[in-house]
């Protein structure tokens, strides 16, 4: 089942990339990077929401499963946030000839990346029992989420150097974006699912060896 999910996700992404590189062109052609940029932005935020829900769940419930989902979504979200910032910088270099500028959207994306990075570092370096580690990281996840709405709000409502006005000329472009979106979201779900079950198996194995 999972293999099917991954195959579907990667297939969709390949089609979207192909379209982005060839036919579905928004003039000028560099804007095709948006086909990769926008879905990854959505997934980076989505993974943070999953992280928030998992953190709240763990604090409320105490069950290990929530914690594993939190770790998985933090890792996946970190990958998506990295891609978000990297493609964003490439896009702005191609479009406006600057790599970065402190505009609200770009700053918020950078903050998102930093939040993920610090979460992962906390995970790895907090000593103490696993439960305490998980609890503190859950607290961090909740507090950090209070910073995240900035990303979303600034993307929607603010005048910014960021948003170019483009409209879709042909069906291929819409298709490329939608396929890319679907593929990335499926990929995010698959990654979180896969990572969670890996962590789960690891945990059960350890519990058997060191009861």
């Amino acid at each position, binding site marked *: 089942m999972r293999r099917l999910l991954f195959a579907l996700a990667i297939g969709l992404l390949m089609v979207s990339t192909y379209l982005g590189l060839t036919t579905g062109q928004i003039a000028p052609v560099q804007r095709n990077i948006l086909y990769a940029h926008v879905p990854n932005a959505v997934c980076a935020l989505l993974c943070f929401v999953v992280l928030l829900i998992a953190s709240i769940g763990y*604090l409320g419930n105490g069950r290990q499963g929530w914690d594993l989902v939190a770790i998985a979504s933090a890792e996946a979200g970190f990958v998506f946030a990295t891609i978000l910032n990297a493609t964003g910088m490439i896009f702005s270099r191609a479009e406006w000839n600057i790599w970065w*500028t*402190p*505009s*609200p959207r770009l*700053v*918020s994306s950078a*903050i998102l990346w*930093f*939040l993920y*990075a*610090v979460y992962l*570092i*906390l995970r790895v*370096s*907090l*000593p*103490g029992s696993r439960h*305490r580690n998980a*609890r*503190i990281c*859950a*607290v*961090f996840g*909740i*507090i*950090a989420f*209070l*910073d995240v709405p*900035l990303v979303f709000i*600034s993307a929607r409502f*603010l*005048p*910014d*150097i960021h948003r170019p006005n483009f409209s879709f000329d042909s069906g291929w472009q819409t298709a490329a974006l939608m396929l890319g979106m679907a593929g990335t979201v499926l990929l995010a779900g698959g990654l979180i699912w896969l990572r969670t079950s890996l962590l789960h198996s690891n945990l059960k194995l350890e519990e058997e060896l060191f009861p």
Partner: protein
Amino acid sequence: MKDFWLGLRAIVIKDIVVELRAKQVLPTMIVLGMLIVFILRMASESSSTSAGAPVMGAAALWIAFLFSGLLAQERSFAAEQQNGCIDGLLLAPLDPGTIYLAKLVANVVMLSIFELIVVPIGLISFDLHVGGRWPQLLAVLLLGNLGISSVGTLFSAAVQLTRTRGSLLSIVVLVILMPMLIPASFALLVLFGAMPEQVGGTGSLAFVGSFRAALGYLLAFDAVFVVACWLLFPVVIQE
């Protein structure tokens, strides 16, 4: 309710008296702040014209607050490690939230003393004039102080009670305070005369828009984070 105030006052007074007697952290904070201001002043030697100075001055002040604030917050729970004081606190008939608020007040007081000394030094070094806007400057400093202390107190309890290095605390606090620094820098830049009160166009500072908006953001940020940290503190402090 009376217990709340009694407990709060007791812990605040305890922390402040201990610090005044030990005289350990406060001088370190002040010297660190002065050093940061000095280093940034020297680093910006080339742009010592009146245009460049307010920008560097605002930056220097916020950096000094952040890093010295971290020192203060580390102290607030490091001392409890010895002799198992933290157990004593937890066994007292106090709501854990009260402990948080008391530590928060103590940290705010420490940082305020620090600000009273280092801000004039910063103003002198960078040759900045605030004119008649002293009340606004105090308001900005207080709001920033509250924000830094609220996040720092919570996470110093989280990180400190396991005897980790302080750098872990720094990255956690700095990353959460990143969004607050934008309106905070805007406010200081306006006060130091580097920017007009209203700014249009694109860019992060334009996003803030006006001095009153910056104060509003700081206030909102403080309100949200003090409440959130207060609510989550009991989770962090139980073993």
